[in-house]
């Protein structure tokens, strides 16, 4: 059910939806209605996709718009899918952590959404497709 909301989000770099690109799948979504908790784990298309942040942001914004406020939304990059997470060196590790942290930090999300360029980008991804 939750997939209905996010499956049509377009990839910032392609004209395809996240579902078509298999960035998100049904398995990657956990919903706990009683606890009002949602966790979405997404897999960027390529290992070092620079757009991972934007995709994560899109997912967060879309879910914010689609879910009642009682839900706590947790968005994660699939472990090992992001180059920074797979690589063994410390710098990348911190990057991946940073990404997960960024996406789930209210302050940084709010800060990101203050950035008009970023918001335009997100809105473009969320725009309902013509079909």
């Amino acid at each position: 059910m939750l997939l209905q909301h996010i499956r049509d989000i377009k990839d910032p770099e392609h004209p395809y939806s996240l579902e078509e690109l298999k960035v998100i799948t049904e398995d990657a979504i956990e919903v706990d209605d009683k606890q009002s908790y949602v966790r979405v784990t997404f897999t960027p298309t390529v290992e070092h996709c620079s757009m991972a942040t934007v995709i994560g942001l899109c997912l967060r914004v879309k879910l914010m718009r689609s879910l009642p406020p009682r839900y706590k939304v947790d968005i994660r990059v699939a472990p090992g899918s992001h180059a920074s997470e797979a690589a063994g060196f410390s710098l990348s590790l911190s990057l991946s952590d940073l990404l997960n942290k960024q996406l789930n930090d209210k302050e940084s999300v709010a800060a990101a959404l203050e950035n008009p360029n970023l918001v335009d980008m997100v809105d473009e991804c969320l725009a309902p497709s013509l079909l």
Partner: protein
Amino acid sequence: MGESVPWIKYIELYVSSTATPSEQAASVDEVATLLKKGIFSLETLVKEMEMYLTTTDSIVRSRGNLLLAELLDKLASKPLSSSSIHSLVGFFTERLADWKALRGALVGCLALLRRTADVGNVTDSDAKAVADSYLQNLQVQSFGQHDRKVSLAKLSTLGMLIKSLSGCNRGFDGGFLKPCRLKDTNEVLLHVKFPSSLTKGDNLVYGICEAVDGEKDPECLFLVFHIVECLGQIYPDPSGPLANYAEDMFEILGSYFPIHFTHPNGEDDDTKREELSRALMVSNLFHGTMWSQPKLKLLKQSALPEDVYKENLDTYLYSDVFQLSFASTPLFEPFSIPLLLEKLSSSLPSTKVESFKYLSYCTLKYGPERMASHAEVLWSSVKYAIYMSPQCTPTKDSELFGGMGFKDSDVMMQAFVLLQEVIQQYGDFISLVLGDNDINAFLNSLNQYNEMDDIPSLAKQRLHVVGHILSICAKPSPALCNKVFNSCFPLLMESLGLSVEKSINGYLDEDCSPPAKFNLAAIYLCTELLAACRYVAVSLDSSTPALEFSQQTWSTMLNNSCKPLVKTFFSLLRSTEADQRASSGVYFGVKGLEILATFPESFLLASNSLYDNILSEFVRTVTSGSHETFLWTLTLKALTEIGLFANKHPESAKSVIFEKIVVEKFVSLIPSGESTMPSSLKLKAAFEIGGTRKEFMFKVVHALSAAIYTNFSAAYDEGNHESGKLMIQLLDTYTEKVLPWFLKIGGFEEIPLNFALGIWEKIEHTMYLNLSALEIAMGAGYKDLLSAIMTAMKKAVGSCSKESQEIIINKAFGVLSSSTSFGFESGSSLVKEEDVKQNLNPSDSSCKHEWLTSLFASVIIALRPQTSIPNGKMIIQLFIKSLLNGHVPSAHALGSLVNKLPLEINGMNCSENLTLNKALDMISPTFTGISHHDKVSQNNGSGVDFSSLRLNTLRMQSGINTAIGLAWIGKGLLMRGHEKVKDITMALLSLLMLDREGVDSKELQIIDVEDMHQLRTTAADAFHIIMSDSGECLNRAYHATIRPLYKQRFFSTIMPIFLSLLIKSDASLVSPTYTSRSMLYRAFAHVVSDTPLIAVLAESKKIVPILLECLSVLSKDVANKDIIYNVLLVISGILLEKNGQEAAVENAPIIINLLIDLTTFQHMMAIRETAIQCLVAMTELPYTRIYPLRTKVLQATSKALDDPKRIVRQEAVRCRQSWASIASRTLRF
């Protein structure tokens, strides 16, 4: 010269190179008109023009020639003497050599050649001379002569040439020339060099070959195809000129296959296309051969979108013309068939389809001899397309066809068409099909499947294909049918466990029981084969009645194995009886029996005993059914089909047997209650069977009416509630099925007439209606029975003519007046209080009273306006009286009366008949008279003063009844456009605005607030009655007078009144007024939501604020939810229109606040959903106006995200999405 001849100035204007084309055209017209009027003769003109025609200045000369030519073109219908034609032709023929003035010469030649015999035309020898000159001179001019106009003229001349050479005066030039003139793009190659040694025919063909080679322009192509087709007709001789060039010609043609026409995008494209299509059609009118109008119609009917249709139309036209040219002459056969066969291997389905199509057409045109040589290749390609790789998909309702319902792909359909065509043309082809190893192997393999579901999908498709092939092979003639039977039937019988050989010597052992499991695949093929047989038998039967079926092998074979076959089918029916799902066994069993039963009578097979058996079996199956199973519906349908077939010859033995076994059985079932069959099934079966023939339907109707009357008595005299229930069903069948059936065929007016009279008769004789017993016995069903009788009565009366209606109303009135409970004799003109009181207590007599009045009201409701009503005054009094007692049908009747009564009556007995004004005079005082002891409202007779209504406590209930009555009367008046509706409206409004101030202080204490409220609500809801469409009365079926746009009219009159009343009530916001204000809003909401949106939109500026206020007032009470929803729909309509949006902009904050409130409306999901949709629509408003509200909306809709209904949640997501993105800024929480 100029002075003596005034028209010379036109000629000068024309030849002058400075004149504009429009001026030139005008001058041609001028001269032509003068010539037509006979002001001067053509000879004079030629003489005067001599200078321009022969001058050495080539430009002037060409213009002069052209002028003369165009004039001739204009004078096509003016008779000319043969000598002048001769000399003109001579002149232009000569001019053909003058390449600088060629255009004029060509146009002139054409104009002359196109003349018809009755106004003088060109002689054959002259035409030949033109052709000669043309062929001779063309080569000279063609060099360097690329002017596109000449190319046009040349092509047209080609057409002319063919015409003159062939002498066929078919006049296809009409179609021929038109596209020529249209053409303005490419040019035809003109490099034509004729080897001098060739004969003229060769010349021509060769010339055409050259001319058409490589043509690309669609319009010219069209001509090319046309020319080739004409050539084919002109030179059918296999040693003729075309034969020599057939290969070359076909090479040119073949390169265009398959045709697909795509349009370039362009501005003038549409007109061009239109003209083109028209030209194509014109030319094809001359054809008359195989297509155009019917086909085009077909294409138009296929609901394609406009542009697709246009595209298809053109491709279609081209393809057809191309097809004609392809098949124009058998001489093309050696080249075209291989090409087409080769194209079949294309990977494009459309190409395959086209190839099959062309092959079918060519087969038809080329004839069997030529096609024989291709037979094997043809079969293998057809087989490949349909059998080896079948492309058919099961239809959605495949289950209902025994799992064998398939939809063929286009390729397959065309391949089947080709197969059919080939077999029809060339019967020997069948040996190829029947001898095919693959198909035979498939037939032999059928034994491995017992159940339809076991068969794998490919095999199932093949089964379907083989069935279709067999059917196609057997259908064309008895001889082919013989062959198919010889090769397949024994095999099939064997797989069914029935041996043909054994049965030839004598029938199969009667007692041998059919096997428990059936080979359903074989049964399927069997039914297909039987159907084909039946087709042959029927066509033989209608063509040669004396034909002996017994001489046909197939007939003998079939007759011999017919009994066991029937047995097999029977056991299929019986074995799966308990099985209620759609099983293929049942389907094929029923279908097989149906086919066997519908063989023509002269066919031996349909021996009467067999036919008897089949019918009896079917009847048994239907009558033993307890609910509508697959088997039941199927069997009933089969019976209907058999009935329809048998009744083609009503005197035939089959029809007689059908009547005896089937019809009588079902008719006898209607009244009896014994059968296991539920009565709904009985009635359905009886109706379906009756529908096969008028006489049968009569029987059904008689049985039905008889049953209704019997049950009527049983229900009333004995209070039998079973009869009552049955009667409801009987009446429903009568009104919903039987009556419409008779109405559809028309001319059976006595049926509804007799029915209505019969009911009245019954009532008359059942004077003592034991209604209380019935009421106790039936409970809630009691009301249903009354309404069923009323509906039946209305429908019956409504479908009668004026005369019959008069009979009915007289009868009804007679019954009514003889009844004791109506005090007609006393002639009381005023409603007595005692009556009212007495009738308020329900008793037997009042019950009967209610029934009689209701039925009588039903008669009145359905009368035609022309029907005259006896004793109108009494009738009106009766209705008024019972209306005041709360009898709603009386209100309907009064409404219908005022709607239909004539304004004036011209005639002798005007005092007898009722006019509208008289009726209104009677009605109005009675309604104001409710308070007649109240001196204030006593009206002085001159006018009606509805607005002076006052109520006292006792009469609160009558007040409500009055409001209802006023509503219906008002509706009747409004629909006919009568001005009195205003009075009614005012009366209703005053009821609605009633408050305690108007009531005597003495009575103030006793007035129940609840009652008061109810009265007001009724008055407000009366506006809904006035504005909405009713199924019960005042509609087209009951002959209401309906003035167009009456709703809009009412809307525009009442709106100002509402506005002023609302303003007034705004002034004082004390509580009683406050409720009356809410009632005003309620009435307003009714009016607005029932008015067509377009009228509301026009007033949207004024309406929107009130509508919003209205919504906020109404939403305080949950009981108003339906009204709220309707108002919300109006608002959403307004928000979606540009006009309405402007009005909405001003009130945006209020609207949004209201909508936000409604998004949490707990009692109706549709309201929440629509409110959110409206919020989405609001985002279309100007940004500056709505931006401040954004946060509010987002906050409010976040609650809707948690809505219990999924639809609402989804709408909420959509809404938040659109509101969040209007600014492309952050979401704020």
